[in-house]
């Protein structure tokens, strides 16, 4: 699942997604990193690394 095959995943909703992840896991994501989080897998890895 990535921004390519999810229609609603546009730049605005990407912001919404990043904010939701930040508040769900109580983490801060740097803007540079957030640009890269364009698929479910990447996000999952990112959070695992962050927490681990």
């Amino acid at each position, binding site marked *: 699942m990535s921004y390519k095959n999810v229609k609603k995943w546009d730049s*605005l*909703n990407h*912001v*919404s997604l*990043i*904010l*939701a*992840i*930040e*508040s*769900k896991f109580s983490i801060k994501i740097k*803007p540079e990193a*957030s640009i890269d989080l364009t698929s479910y897998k990447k996000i999952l890895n990112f959070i695992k690394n962050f927490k681990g």
Partner: protein
Amino acid sequence: MKYQNSTPYHKILELLESKKFKYNRKITIYNLYNFNPLILNKYLELHLKEKSLKPKILSSEFDQIDQGLLSISKNFKSKKFDILIVGSDINAKLSYNESVIDEYLNSQKNNLTQCLKIINKYKNLPIIFFNCNILSSSFFSSREEFIKLREKIFNFNQYLYKLSLKNKNFKILDINVIGNVIGLGSFYDSKNYYISKTPYSQQSNNHISFELSQTISSIFVTRKKCLVLDLDNTLWGGVLGEDGPNGIDLGESYKGECFRNFQKYIKKLLNKGIILAICSKNNIQDVRECFKKNKEMILNFNDFSNVQINWKEKYLNINKISEELNIGKDSMVFFDDSSFEREQMKKFNPSINVIETPKEPENFIQTIENSSFFYQTTLTTEDKKKKYQYKILKKANKFKDKTKNISEFLKGLSMTLEIDNINKFNFERAVQLTNKVNQFNLTTKRYSSSELQQFLKSKNQISLLARLKDKFGDHGLTALAMAKKKNSKTWIIDNFLLSCRILGRGIENALLYELLKKLKKKRVNIVKGIYIKTKKNHQCKDFYIKNFFIKKDKTHICDLNKIKKMNNSFLKIKYE
């Protein structure tokens, strides 16, 4: 304004996905912002849904306020929204100096001029306008500059408030107060701004959208009518039966002052037209004595339109209040410190609105405020009179108990029905009635201001609003009838309703007769009356059949050439 505990953003999204909401009304909101409102709108959606409003939020491209306003004022016919929000925040400009702020204030003034044009042209479109934030001094090069600019912003904000007082459709969202409540330090979030063009922090988004939802619901949701209060540990501290009239906590002590302020707040609600009632397990003599003897008491025993003080279950007593005041249960709010009573009420009388009363009396006022059950931005003159009207109703009911024969009773009331067309003086009340009345309402058609305006524009309509007076006083504008042309011979009754507080006096029959007479004068042959069943209007099911109409298929037909003169000698009819 109390600080709103901020719900984290992911929770908002989850709640929007999973929670089931009950809706009373759909509204379409059009917003124009100079920032990206994505996050703000998610919060707003949730707050509105929690107030039983189903919003559709339309946004223009952000930072297009002036173009947006221009296109609305030019091309309003295509208007497909109920309310307009205009928000321009100074932080979207980020760097501050005199010229930036001057430019910002000028653009705000332009926006304001456009908004006023729109309001003038389209009388019934409410607009919510963000005022300007007063910034902290650290942004400025010198103290002098700061003081000068602060004054400019302050003056503009004062001007906005004055406008809002004059114009009921112009509402202010006070970003300044919200900034103060949250603290400027956590009000803005510059990271949010850089990545998403949203200037506000999560807390601010939550707070601003909550205030927006309060204002919006005050426009579109009719507030509750009656507050039912407990006594012990609610209006005062301690237990009257044990502590005695002068032993209860009210007045100078820490707790006593909380309760006294709470009573002051209740008095304010009363003056805003909220009906008060008591539902308490106590001895009535003790309570009377207490209201008389305790000098710290703010409320009078007479401030309560109905009092149920006994040892019966409260969920039964509240039914009595509802019956005696003729107020629907869903318009009543129950406030009691005991969680046992609240739970019982919820279980056995689920249509009553129950407020989750906090343990600490210092939080009582805020809890009622946050519920927004009684929130209203404008008062109609009818509201101010309401308590008085319920009082005279009580007198009339007592009179009814004394006289046994009903027609004798009605004659003895010496009632006058003053009938008038809906006009600009009573327009507000007409809209209110179509939205409020549930029980005696044949079609339960709700009208917004603009919809009613539209209806009145047509030449082929009759709309009547009636005021009832009797020997006890003025009951106010309480009955409404609207009919419109269907074809050359047939008219249809679009709306027919009577406020429940004047039911049982034959007013409805008299008003229908007057409407039919008017239609006959217009050479109408056939009148159609429809009854649309709802959960609450069962009592008017046979209204048309009892009065001149014959049932035909799903509607009722009245042949105006055949109607007989009606005996309504129990009542005087006056046309304004």
